[in-house]
């Protein structure tokens, strides 16, 4: 059992932040690695990339969007409640060496994962340009935290209610066109966003790392449900990833595989409401 020590509702209650007491995991987890959470006895195993770690207090931070039955159930928990299982760290550590100037792009809850990564990239001594986007102002998360870590930060909203109006790709294209010292791009967010960014950076031939979130069960390489095609080879996201070279990833396949259980998810939600 793992205690939730702090809960924060963000983005009109659709995005939730938990600080979970898990000292063993906190001692080991590196940026890019993820944990799998199971809420209760009947729950599914939910892979969630860690947004932050506090080694001193032994807590890890997870941020998730409420999309289905399991995440709705998680939202109903409060500080002081317990999660049945938290297992981790899983996956490989994201490479965070000093490269020079790096652009980090985050969309939606992807900003949460990006935050942990940016922290390490900053510690490694990189100059960091951040671009974060959301649908509207209320949906934007971790702006303050990102502002502290980034040397420059651009915020975009789809409806223009805050920051620049438009998608994260627009300021990114501007940077890529103007600055020629950009060594690498990190893009974490919805599949469509990562796909568009990769198409863009391919044009400028700049290496782009993405963090993938396929359907997963065990997270230890055993089930192969999380297989993705990277460079025409099948990779298991849980042991080979979750970070891959975005130019090699078959995003269309990932998108379709991720939509496999949409109907089931709806059914489950309806069942739980009844």
């Amino acid at each position: 059992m793992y205690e939730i020590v702090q809960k924060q509702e963000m983005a009109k209650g659709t995005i939730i932040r938990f600080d979970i007491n898990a000292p063993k995991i906190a001692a080991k987890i590196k940026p890019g690695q993820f944990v799998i959470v199971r809420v209760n006895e009947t729950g599914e195993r939910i892979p969630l990339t860690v947004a932050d770690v506090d080694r001193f207090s032994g807590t890890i931070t997870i941020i998730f969007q409420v999309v289905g039955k399991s995440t709705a159930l998680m939202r109903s928990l409060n500080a002081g409640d317990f999660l049945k299982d938290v297992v981790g760290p899983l996956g490989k550590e994201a490479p965070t060496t000093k490269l020079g100037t790096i652009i980090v792009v985050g969309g939606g809850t992807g900003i949460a994962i990006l935050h942990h990564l940016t922290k390490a990239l900053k510690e490694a001594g990189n100059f960091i340009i951040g671009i974060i986007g959301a649908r509207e102002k209320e949906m934007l998360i971790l702006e303050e935290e990102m502002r502290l870590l980034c040397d420059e930060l651009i915020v975009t909203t789809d409806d223009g209610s805050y920051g620049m109006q438009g998608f994260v790709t627009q300021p990114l294209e501007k940077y890529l066109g103007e600055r020629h010292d950009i060594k690498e791009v990190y893009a974490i967010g919805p599949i469509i966003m990562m796909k568009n960014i990769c198409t863009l950076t391919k044009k400028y031939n700049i290496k782009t790392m993405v963090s993938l979130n396929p359907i997963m069960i065990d997270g230890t390489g055993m089930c192969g449900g999380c297989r993705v095609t990277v460079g025409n080879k099948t990779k298991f996201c849980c042991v080979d990833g979750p970070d891959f070279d975005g130019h090699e990833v078959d995003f269309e396949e990932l998108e379709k595989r991720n939509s496999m259980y949409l109907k089931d998810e709806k059914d489950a939600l309806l069942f739980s409401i009844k």
Partner: protein
Amino acid sequence: MLEYDVKYLKFKTFLNTYCPHCNNSFNVKREGKELLVFKAIFKKQEIELLMSPYLDVFEMEASVPIQDGEKLSDLICPRCKTSLVTKERTCDECGSSVAKLIITAYSKLLPFFICLQHGCEWHGLTKADERIIKLKIPRQEMPAQDQKLRTHNFVEVPYGLTTELALLEAGRCLQCKNPKCVEGCPVNIDIPEFIKLICEEKFDEAAKKIKERNVLPAVCGRVCPQEDQCEQLCILGIKDKPVAIGNLERFVADFERKMDLVKIPLIRKKLNKRIAVVGSGPGGVTVAADLTLLGYAVTIFEALHEPGGVLVYGIPEFRLPKSIVHFELDYLKKLGCKIEMNMVIGNIFTVDELLQNFDAVYIGVGAGLPLFMKIPGENLCNVFSANEYLTRINLMKAYKFPEYDTPLPKGDKVTVIGGGNVAMDCARNALRTGANEVTIVYRRSRKELPARNEEIHHAEEEGIKFKLLTSPISFAGNDNNWVKGMECVRMELGEPDDSGRRRPIVIKDSNFFIESDLIVVAIGNGPNPIIFSTTPDVKLNKWGYIEVNPETMETSKEFVYAGGDIVTGSATVIQAMGAGRTAANAIHKKLSSTK
């Protein structure tokens, strides 16, 4: 003594007895009770002697009181008045003279001897006759759930032997002096001894006997391939079917559990040494149990949220009910062994870190990454590895969706690629989760199917189709990237390969299409890289499995041992347990010599 002992003939407890001289029956019904009536000479007095015709209450009653140890001087047929005492032999237990009767068994008349000393329960046949009787009992089949009914539920298929059937089956054992079956058992259970205890109706003691060598009898009784191990070597198997050792093992384990007779042995000696076991599958559990009983402090680390390894994520509920696995693991916990869940060793602790806190480490992480065929279209939606398909259904209980949150893979026409036990499990799971048609595709012929006969038999009974000598070459999908079938080629068998099986060869231009909306790839597993990525000094073989000394299961790294699928590649539950046993002995030996 043993060879004349017919205590094992409990099935025939009711004796029909006849006089060897006048052929009249001694059986008489008196006041509703079946009795054998004789005349006897006792202390020079002629008396009437009554005897029970039931072997298990073998006792005499006489018109005058007789004390234990006193002997009858004669036993006489009440009809022809001839003495029944014979000089052919004497009592094996007390040496007294014996009387000879004739009994019927399997429509044969056989000579039968009883001792004349009161209180002595010896009675016997000749050895040759006893063998005839035992050979005549057919192997008892386990009652099983109706084949139509069971495809709609997850209830265990075989119900297990009843007490009567178990006694009958146990009676078949010849109690060989040099039992071959024990040699066939990877953990060397004293098979004749536990069967003898069943014959004596000491079921709990029989269970205890098995547990001396095997901590998971209820599991092994269900999933061991006995036909390739102990039962293959059974002498009865030469002329007839072998003793159903597995079914008997299951019977006593179930009896002990259901009757709440499980006792936790007290471990008196506590050693100040700690052992880490990585993986709570059958191998890890064996190491843990053996070393806990020897007094070591054992901690098991399990990566998943439930202990049991393949027993919980792989083997389906209808073949091995999970409540049984939980029960057996509870026993281990009660012995004092710790099980820590959600611990992915290699990530949360490296093996080196474990060695700082433990005196030895056993790696039993089991099979790893599922193998795929590396053909086009394998990542289409609704193409699964057997591991994922089974894990969803067994571990995550997707068959209870939406009560349980993990979605169930659904298909109308399901195809399973592969011919092992795992493939059978997938196919039978598919049938139980709503598939209309389930087909197993295998590239060799029926003879080469690696699955257990029992599993193939059950699958066929349930209506699963087999497309043999067939191999897929690509998967086809619809516009939404969902699988709709696979292109296959026919195969023929060529010369035997290294494994001794005939190599399948593609028949040219034999392509054909199998329609299917859910495909499971069940062609085995490769090793899991997680633990080695942080432990580079454990030597691996060319397939990426751990290299060990087969005598001790020790790896190239001192105090690190390994066994099971991570050493051998996909194998059986009991083989993993055998490796665990070897490792436990070696660990104990090594740690006893190093202070």
